[in-house]
């Protein structure tokens, strides 16, 4: 029997990590929660979770000396999964409360979810609820990505007011639709993936994504 895959979840004080941990454990992983740079650098694969404000999260990562650590994970080709705010942090900058620099692992910017639908009606912000995933226009097949076992139309659970828009459309692999707008749902570059939705709260659809990450 092969050993359980190890997953290290970065615990930097933003949000509740229990659900992410339970979801990964459900997929058979050995989960470590830590903010220790040495343990994160040595990890087989790393999850960057996060809820709350972009600026606070970047400050917390800086105070824990984790910004350079996460950047070097990317250079080492360690599989890295950013969830929700953790996905947005992967980009170069965010417009939330003024411009704040991010980790810069995927070129692009975090911008507000449009407050009006394409037909001009006011829509509720945050975008909360289940939305279907669809391939982005420039995306190739989902084969070989964390969405390998996901079918277009599968729904995932979103809670967010901002969205992470990569500069290069090739880094955008799945979208959802909110008020007629295409919202980036999954972005990816090399072995880095970001999910705007919460795979740990998206039932079997989300667990399939976590299982694929654990096998990466």
């Amino acid at each position, binding site marked *: 029997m092969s050993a359980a895959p190890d997953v290290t979840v970065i615990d930097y004080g933003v949000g509740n990590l*229990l*659900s992410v941990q*339970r*979801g990964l454990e459900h997929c058979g992983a050995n989960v470590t929660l830590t903010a220790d740079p040495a343990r994160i650098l040595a990890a087989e694969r790393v999850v960057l979770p996060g809820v709350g404000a972009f600026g606070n999260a970047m400050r917390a990562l800086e105070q824990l000396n984790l910004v350079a650590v996460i950047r070097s994970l990317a250079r080492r080709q360690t599989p890295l999964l950013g969830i929700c705010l953790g996905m947005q942090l992967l980009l170069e900058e965010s417009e939330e409360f003024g411009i704040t620099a991010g980790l810069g692992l995927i070129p692009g910017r975090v911008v507000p979810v449009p407050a009006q639908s394409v037909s001009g009606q*006011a829509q*509720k912000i945050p975008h909360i609820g289940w939305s279907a995933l669809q391939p982005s226009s420039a995306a190739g097949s989902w084969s070989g990505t964390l969405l390998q076992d996901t079918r277009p139309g599968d729904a995932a659970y979103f809670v967010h007011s901002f969205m992470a828009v990569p500069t290069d459309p090739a880094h955008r692999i799945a979208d959802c639709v909110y008020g007629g707008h295409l919202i980036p749902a999954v972005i990816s570059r090399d072995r880095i993936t970001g999910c705007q939705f*919460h795979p740990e*709260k998206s039932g079997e659809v989300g667990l399939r994504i976590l299982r694929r990450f654990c096998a990466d």
Partner: protein
Amino acid sequence: MKNIRLIARLDIKGPNLIKGIHLEGLRVIGSPSEHALRYYQQGVDELIYMDCVASLYGRNHLGDIVRSAARDIFVPMTVGGGIRSVDDATQILRAGADKVAVNTAAVANPQLITDIARRFGSQCMVLSIEAKQVGLERWEVYTDNGRERTGLDVVEWVKRGVAQGAGEVLLTSVDREGTRKGFDVALVKAVSSAVSVPVIASGGMGKPEDLLEAVCDGGADAVAMADILHYKRADIGEIRAVAQAAGLGVRNYERST
């Protein structure tokens, strides 16, 4: 089109899942975890756990139930009943809840709404309102599981609660709760047109078709269901099919293979 959400509501007393009528005459249904797992496997969009005696005794029994649910249930969970402080909210969120629902303590101290919303975000702070009709198009806020009147008008209170930072409203009609007579559509409409945050209609769903009125006429963003599920008068799949057939957007869900 925005998807409506189908939510299973589990009222809890001690270790048991219970159900009452008008939130009273509580009857034991069974194990909360077995029911929650069944609804999850049927494809429920969210779960709401309400400890219905917590306000009375100032205790919360839900921590263990939620902690165990978080092991094998991977949809959002809202937990309410007996949450009196930011610390109580912190504890229940650490146990695996995604949102907290606050009624009695919010009425006693509206600042609590703001404090929870500032700490965890508005999306985490659900204002739970127990409403009883007191006149034509007029409803009064009740607390302590429909036992105590407050003198507050429901529409005024919901506006205040949202201004304080509530990101969602769980609206329970005490008059309809457990009666299977359908939702109080006028109440749902009065509340959903007063605020811009999502409103969950709760109380009275007797048959799957009842949700259509709550959503189409009442403007609800979600429906909370208890009796209809606990007594197996319909399952989530059947209810989703009814919503879909009526042209409502619902989460695309296929039973896992």
